[in-house]
């Protein structure tokens, strides 16, 4: 599974990077470490009609986009 590490980044960068990565790969795991990035990446993926799920891993989240 392709993994995109957006930890340490603030919005809108994680959304921009997710958009680029989804152009190359239909399925993706995105790692984020703040709530705004979590929510905004989820919104972007949902708007692209993807199935989105997020699980907390310590102080960050893994967002799976399928």
């Amino acid at each position: 599974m392709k993994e995109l590490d957006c930890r340490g980044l603030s919005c809108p960068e994680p959304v921009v990077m997710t958009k680029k990565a989804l152009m190359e790969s239909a399925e993706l795991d995105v790692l984020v470490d703040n709530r705004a990035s979590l929510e905004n990446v989820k919104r972007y993926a949902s708007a692209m009609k993807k199935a989105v799920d997020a699980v907390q891993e310590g102080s960050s989240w893994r967002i799976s986009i399928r």
Partner: protein
Amino acid sequence: MEEGDVRLTDLVRSSGCNAKLPPGDLDSVLRSLPSFPDPAILAGYETADDAFVYDLGDGRAMLQTVDFFPPMVDDPQLFGEIAAANAISDIYAMGGEPSVALSIVCFPSCLPLSVLHDIMLGAIGKAREAGCTIAGGHTISDREPKFGLAVTGFADSGHVWQNRGAREGDAVVLTKKLGTGITMTALKGREADAGSVEEAVESMRTLNRKACSQARRCRIHAATDVTGFSLVGHASEMATASGVTIELSFGSLPLLEGARYAELGFIPEGRYTNEDFLGSKADLSALSQLERDIVLSPETSGGLLLSLPEEDAHLVDGWVIGHVSGYSGKAVAVR
């Protein structure tokens, strides 16, 4: 580096009023500090008003406010105009006339000085349009550019508008469209189209001067402006200070084209801290996620939010977005 190579928004982490410290953090610090009441200060920070009000004792009051932030647009002159319009707005939000201002500048040493020149040129022009003179300022070297003004204005001490005073039955009027923070977040992500950016920039660089002078012809019961704490946040401050509930109708809200970018996740970080701070004070349960994102997102240089008798509302160019009712357990409800 040439000025044309500079993308101001790439130099900063957050921009415009999105850069405000989370409201809950500020609140906890302010509450932990000693206060020394001064009888001449008619309104200070404890009422969350836009400027403090100092009674000059001759029927006039002096209003003072300060506001500065990192750039949300790449054009330095436009940034200066927006920063000035935003800072001066706090004087208009209290019914005053801006008179003099000091500029506050943080500027990276690696940038061409022509950028600083253009920021200040924009601010001077906008202040002049407001009848306000920038008479001095202070500049420090910093990694991220920031600009703003400390503004002094004057008003009749009997006619200063505050957050408190909204009355049951009042109409609630907003004088600018919502969505500047969302549009500027989309711009930072290079997603926003030129038309949406232009509309938002035009809104941000517009002074609240005309709205203020129109509102002076009305019986204003309470007033503020909509900036970093979002429409719901600022309405909540007004409702709490007035002991009422402000009921807003989402369908009546004027929206910028760029507000649609919220759907793609271009939402300022402040939207989430605003929600945390408001907690149970706002009832947004009737709204969709997109609608909540819009009403909770920070605005930069937003419009005046006025509470006034319904029959006066037509005297102001703006939108009636709701009304004031008796306190029903929530400061704000949006349906």
